């Protein structure tokens, strides 16, 4: 009898896809160490100039900005996502559960462009919030919401919130309710039971949610581009601008390589730092 039926059939398509993806990554890597020829799409010889150029303060600031926005967005998503996930798991009625679930999940499937455009309509100078506040007489001149870190963060949180809620809810739904009941029967109030039992046991969800929100925000392009309007720039915006406005694809490639390295470094640090908490959730 054949020990591994259809082995080649199962493995080959995946292996080929992995190979094609590797080729794309190698293409970026290869371009990142080539010289840019101004006015031409062809690339010159080998050089490390692209990477030394990145050390200029102008680019350093964009890298720092990107990291700051990623951490801020992930943290706000966690804080906002926790009550939603808790309500989703512990709601008593099926209808309420469904409403929360569909409401939370829908933005996930809308795509970056539609969501970003909606936030421009909400945050713009003639937008919803400013019109409302002006009408009510709360403010005399429109608030500067678009083109600010606050505006970009709000729109970014809207993108990452669904996935954070899903990950937190998955963790919360697998916590044995008997632990909490045990704590309460021993005299702990609901607040104490939450902070000493439920919260620590949901640590894997918190870590997974933070990590994913971080990586997703790193990948965001339309939101900082349109809501940030050139005043709040992330690495993605710089890569696009260098490629399609300056046609400096080698430099765009080297920035992508640096971004990739930074993503993996951040994820690795996160994993190292949270390892002690990961075990807390295992039961």
């Amino acid at each position: 009898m054949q020990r591994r039926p259809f082995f080649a059939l199962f493995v080959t398509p995946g292996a080929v896809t992995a190979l094609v993806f590797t080729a794309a990554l190698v293409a970026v890597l290869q371009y990142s160490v080539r010289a840019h020829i101004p006015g031409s799409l062809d690339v010159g010889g080998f050089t490390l100039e692209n990477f030394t150029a990145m050390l200029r303060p102008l680019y350093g600031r964009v890298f720092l900005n990107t990291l700051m926005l990623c951490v801020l967005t992930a943290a706000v998503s966690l804080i906002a996502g926790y009550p939603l996930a808790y309500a989703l798991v512990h709601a008593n009625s099926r209808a309420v559960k469904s409403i929360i679930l569909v409401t939370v999940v829908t933005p996930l499937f809308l795509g970056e462009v539609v969501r970003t455009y909606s936030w421009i309509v909400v945050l713009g100078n003639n937008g919803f919030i400013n019109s409302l506040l002006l009408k009510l007489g709360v403010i005399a001149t429109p608030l500067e919401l678009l083109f600010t870190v606050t505006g970009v963060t709000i729109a970014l949180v809207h993108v990452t919130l669904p996935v954070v809620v899903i990950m937190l809810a998955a963790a919360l739904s697998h916590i044995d309710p008997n632990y909490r009941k045990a704590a309460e029967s021993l005299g702990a109030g609901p607040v104490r039971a939450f902070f000493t039992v439920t919260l620590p046991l949901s640590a894997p969800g918190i870590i997974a949610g933070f990590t994913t929100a971080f990586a997703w925000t790193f990948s965001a392009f339309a939101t900082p581009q349109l809501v940030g309007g050139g005043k709040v720039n992330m690495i993605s915006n710089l890569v696009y601008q260098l490629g399609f406005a300056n046609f400096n694809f080698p430099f765009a490639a080297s920035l992508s390589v640096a971004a990739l390295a930074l993503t993996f470094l951040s994820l690795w640090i996160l994993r190292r730092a949270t390892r002690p908490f990961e075990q807390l959730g295992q039961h």
Partner: protein
Amino acid sequence: MRSAPIIRLLGRTVVVLLLGFIILPAVVVAIAAFNDRALLAFPPEGFSLRWFVKAFEYRDFQTGFHNGLIVMLSASAIAVVVGTAFAFALDRYRFAGRGVIETLLLAPLVVPHFTVGLGFLILAAQLRLMRSFTVVIVCHVVLVLPFVLRSVYISLRNLDRRLELAAESLGARPARVLFTVTLPLLVPGVVSGWLFAAILSFNEFTASLFVTAQRTQTLPVAMYNYVREYADPTMAAMSLIFIVGTTLLLTLANTFFGLGRVLNVDDAR
């Protein structure tokens, strides 16, 4: 336990406010879409459907929709075949390079989309494939594959292997077991994986912006270009169509499949 009702009330208020935050842009876009004036204004002045007419008649949106369908259908179909096959390999076999291939196939979950897009753009330029659908479809396959792979893999893990053994012991050959026992049992995992892949491909933007040309641009790219050039509410009408369509699709999926089960957030007990 005097504090319990207060905490509950506070909790409910917070949840309602957060849900309001999530819905707010959709509501505001809906108001803007029916506004008669060409500039955004609140409260809207006059009721009109003309932005919807304009959205449907706009050529770039028509070709974008058409191109998006081509890319979505091809990419999700390819991803389902590749993902299902490889999930089998992962679940059943140990082989050289298993971990490497798995890592590479799941990597698009964390690799920034602009890096993937730039990579395929350079690759396409080198292979003289610019302006062809091939590069767009291949790029989308890579991006949506992790979702199919995961969905099918979870179904395979939960599959009762004794059913396959029973079929085998009754004399069924491997091919027959695969097609009459294993694959039918995997249908829910494959369908939900395909659904995720299709929706994500249709909405994918950042990588598409890099790899599409004028002739192959998908709907999100066409919408992005519109937002950059015009400020009228046509885009609001377009967004509202997207929001209503997606919400309907997800409500249906929730009713028939149980989204909670698919997303693994249902109470285990």
